[in-house]
């Protein structure tokens, strides 16, 4: 993995929210790091582990176990297709397939130009409006095949 620049001041600010040596804060602090940097950079995790007195292997296990974390930077637009049951039976898979082919990426991956990240999420709890797609956290309900592609193509 290539080393990227992590602003140590930003990382330090996050660490200060948690008492040093408190390993139980690991997941919370990782969530803050993910929110701040858009992913979990190795350097930030190292600083965190030192602060919490947790081995770096534990942070890596957690960062790869939980879906909330990613080890790579995400695109400008994060597209999340809800694949909850209600969305599935109303055609979410078709939307996923369509987006994969338009963006030329697999779910969970980011386009090379770092513009889009395509993700699937197991239910956002907006089942009544299925199928649901969210663009950077903004929900779109009752999405039909074709409508998303127009939105994405417009932004591309």
């Amino acid at each position: 993995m290539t080393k990227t620049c992590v602003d140590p001041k930003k990382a330090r600010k996050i660490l200060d929210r948690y008492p040093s040596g408190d390993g139980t804060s690991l997941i919370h602090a990782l969530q803050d790091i993910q929110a701040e940097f858009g992913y979990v950079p190795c350097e930030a995790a190292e600083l965190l582990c030192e602060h919490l007195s947790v081995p770096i292997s534990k942070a890596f296990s957690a960062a790869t176990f939980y879906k909330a974390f990613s080890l790579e930077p995400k695109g400008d637009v994060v597209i999340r297709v809800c694949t909850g049951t209600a969305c599935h039976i109303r055609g979410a898979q078709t939307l996923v397939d369509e987006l994969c082919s338009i963006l030329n990426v697999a779910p969970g991956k980011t386009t090379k130009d770092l513009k889009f990240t395509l993700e699937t999420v197991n239910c956002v709890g907006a089942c009544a409006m299925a199928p649901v797609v969210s663009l950077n956290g903004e929900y779109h309900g009752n999405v039909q095949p074709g409508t998303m592609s127009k939105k994405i193509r417009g932004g591309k």
Partner: protein
Amino acid sequence: MTNNKTINLEIDGRFFQADEGMTILEVARREGIEIPTLCQHDALEPVGACRLCLVEITHPNWKGWKGLVTSCLYPIEEGLQVTTNNPEIHTARKTLLDLLLARCPEATYIQKCAAEYGITATSFKKREEETTCILCGLCVRVCAAKGCNAIGATGRGITKGIAVPFRQPPPDCIGCASCAHICPTDTIKYTDTEDLRKIWGHKFKMVKCVSCGRPVMPEKQLEFEAAKAGLDAKYLTTCPQCSQDQTLATVQSSFQSKTVPGGSLEVAR
């Protein structure tokens, strides 16, 4: 542990007594009753991941209820009745090995275990990316028990693996190779030369035996072990072979001289 209550239990129709706090597996092994395991090691905490040690338990007070539990984790209790093998358990173990063989078709150890259940080829779909790792987790647990926590599990579900953090040579690794030695399928590799040990992407400089000059252990491990034991590192720089030879020599000479080691030297009669 001497104050522990004594528990009476029945395994495969035979009656045993054992201390409270023991697991079914511990009692069975003590009595020479065979229960297969893959993820269990006497020196490490059990986790119940491989499920091969499933046994059936019931109890006179349970109104006929019976169920499968992992014997490596289940604490014995008064009056417990254990069956270590029956057709259901046999099928479960056979299926588990069949599944493992689909995961690791090339792992010779798993091939051998599966063959004992009459399986020569898996009946399931073989895994696309080849691996011999059965995810027993012994390597991670031994590393943690050692106090290093250098390696860990990564991901989850079918994509779970064992990896070094952030895919870089693990900073906490001391090069002891305990992970490689405990691995039942020989998946973790390391190479030793006169001067270097290569493991997990690291190149560790080896300490030479003060006596014979052969490599003893990586320098980093020496520092770690000495600090842990509160000893000066020089006490640990003799290789196992030389330590043994020296001990033997001391014992032999003490017989010859009829003196205790370190005492005044007397001429043998």
